[in-house]
C-alpha cells in the first residue's frame, strides 16, 4: 500500500462518514454545515483524481455557494407548529434495501469496468494547439463542446427567471429577500471592506489563469458573487431591486457575447460557435471575461432569492 493510497483511503472514509452524517443529522443547521464540509472535502477528492478544474468548481459552487443558498433558506423558513415525522420503519427498511441494491449495482459497474478505459484525452490533446488554449478542460468547455457551455449559461439564467417568478405580485421588480446582518458589528464591516479587493483580484486571476491552467469563468465568477454577497450581508451595499437596468444588463452580457461570437462563426469561420484560427484565444478571453461578470451576478442573485419587498426609493 503506497503512501498516496493511504491518504486516499482516509479521505474516502471521511467523505462517506460526513455524507452519512449529513443525511441523518437532526437539525437542518447541522446538516447544512456538514454538507459544506462535505463539499470542501470533495474538492480534495477531485484533486486526488487529478481533476483540478473540477476541484475548483466543486469547492466554489458545490460546497461554497450551495451552502450559502441552503443556509439562507433555512434562515427564512418558519418552523411548523407540529413536529415533522419522517417515514416509518418498514418504508425505511425498504428504502435501505433499494439503496443498497443501487449501490451494489454501481459498485459492480465500477468493478467490471473494461481494462482499457475509453478516452478522448489524446484527441483533446492533439487539437489543443488549434484552440490557442493551454488548459484541455477549458478547450473542451469553450471550443470542442461550446454549445453545452452556452446552454449551461442559459440554464443558469432560466433558473433565475424561475426563482424571480416565485415573487408575490406586489413584490415583483422589488428587492430580493437575502437575509442580512441585522446589526453588522465593526469587525464584520472591517472584514467586508478588506476582503472584496482581495476577492476581486483572486476572481480575475482565476478567470485569467483558466486559459492556460485550471480555473476559468465559473470559478472566478463564484468568487465575485461571494464578495458581493458579503458586502450585502454586512449592509455596506443595498441589495439591488431586480428591475434595475444595469443589473439586467450584467446578467445577459456574458451569454449575449457568447452567442454573438458564436453566430459570427457562421461568417468568419465555417460554422456556429467556430472560431477563426489565430484569433481563437482572444475571442475566448472576451467571452470568458463577460461570462465571469454575468455568472458572478447570476449566482449572487440566485442565492439572494426572489424579490420580497419593493425598494424604498
Amino acid at each position, binding site marked *: 500500500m503506497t*503512501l498516496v493510497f493511504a491518504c486516499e483511503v*482516509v479521505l474516502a472514509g471521511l467523505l462517506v462518514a460526513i455524507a452519512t452524517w449529513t443525511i441523518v443529522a437532526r437539525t437542518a*443547521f447541522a446538516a447544512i454545515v456538514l454538507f459544506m*464540509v462535505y463539499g470542501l*472535502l470533495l474538492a*480534495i477528492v477531485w484533486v486526488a483524481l487529478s481533476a483540478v478544474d473540477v476541484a475548483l468548481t466543486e469547492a*466554489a459552487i458545490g460546497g461554497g455557494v450551495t451552502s450559502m443558498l441552503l443556509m439562507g433558506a433555512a434562515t427564512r423558513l418558519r418552523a411548523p407548529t407540529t413536529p415533522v415525522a419522517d417515514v416509518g420503519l418498514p418504508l425505511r427498511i425498504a428504502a435501505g434495501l433499494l439503496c443498497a441494491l443501487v449501490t451494489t449495482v454501481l459498485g459492480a459497474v465500477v468493478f467490471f469496468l473494461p481494462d482499457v478505459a475509453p478516452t478522448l484525452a489524446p484527441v483533446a490533446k492533439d487539437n489543443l494547439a488549434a484552440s490557442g488554449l493551454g488548459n484541455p478542460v477549458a478547450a473542451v468547455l469553450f471550443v470542442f463542446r461550446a454549445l453545452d457551455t452556452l446552454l449551461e449559461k442559459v440554464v443558469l439564467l432560466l433558473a433565475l427567471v424561475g426563482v424571480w417568478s416565485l415573487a408575490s405580485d406586489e413584490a415583483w421588480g422589488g428587492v430580493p429577500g437575502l437575509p442580512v446582518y*441585522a446589526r453588522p458589528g465593526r469587525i464584520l464591516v472591517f472584514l467586508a471592506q478588506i476582503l472584496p479587493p482581495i476577492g476581486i483580484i483572486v476572481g480575475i486571476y482565476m478567470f485569467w489563469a483558466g486559459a492556460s491552467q485550471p480555473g476559468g469563468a465559473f470559478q472566478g465568477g463564484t468568487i465575485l458573487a461571494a464578495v458581493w*454577497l458579503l458586502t450585502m450581508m454586512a449592509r455596506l451595499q443595498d441589495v439591488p431591486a431586480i428591475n434595475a437596468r444595469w443589473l439586467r444588463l450584467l446578467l445577459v452580457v456574458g451569454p449575449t457575447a457568447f452567442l454573438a461570437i458564436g453566430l459570427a462563426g457562421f461568417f468568419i469561420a465555417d460554422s456556429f460557435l467556430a472560431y477563426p484560427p489565430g484569433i481563437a484565444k482572444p475571442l475566448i478571453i472576451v467571452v470568458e471575461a463577460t461570462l465571469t461578470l454575468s455568472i458572478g451576478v447570476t449566482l449572487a442573485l440566485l442565492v439572494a432569492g426572489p424579490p420580497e419587498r419593493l425598494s424604498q426609493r
Partner: protein
Amino acid sequence: MTITNFLLVAAAFVLLMVAIGLARILYGPADVDRILSVQLIGSGGVAVLLLLSVGMNLAPIMDVALMLGLLATFLSVTFLRDAANSSSVSPSTTEER
C-alpha cells in the same frame, strides 16, 4: 525517505487530525460549535492541499487551496448571520429597512 514522501505523509497526518477535530466540533452541541468546523476545514484543508501541491509537484493545486481559504471566510460569515440575528434583535428588524 525522500522529501516528497515526507510531505505526503505529513498531508495524510494533517488530514487525519483534521478529521478527528471535525468529528468533535460537528458533534456540537451548540450551533456555534459547528461553525468552528468551517474554520478548521478552511485552515486544515489549505494545509493538506499545499502539502499535496508541493509533494506531488502540481502547482495548480495551490489555486484550489486559495479558493478553499477564501470561501471558508465567506461561509463563516454566512453561517454566523443566523447566530447574530437571532440573539441580538428580533427577526422582524431584518425585514424592515
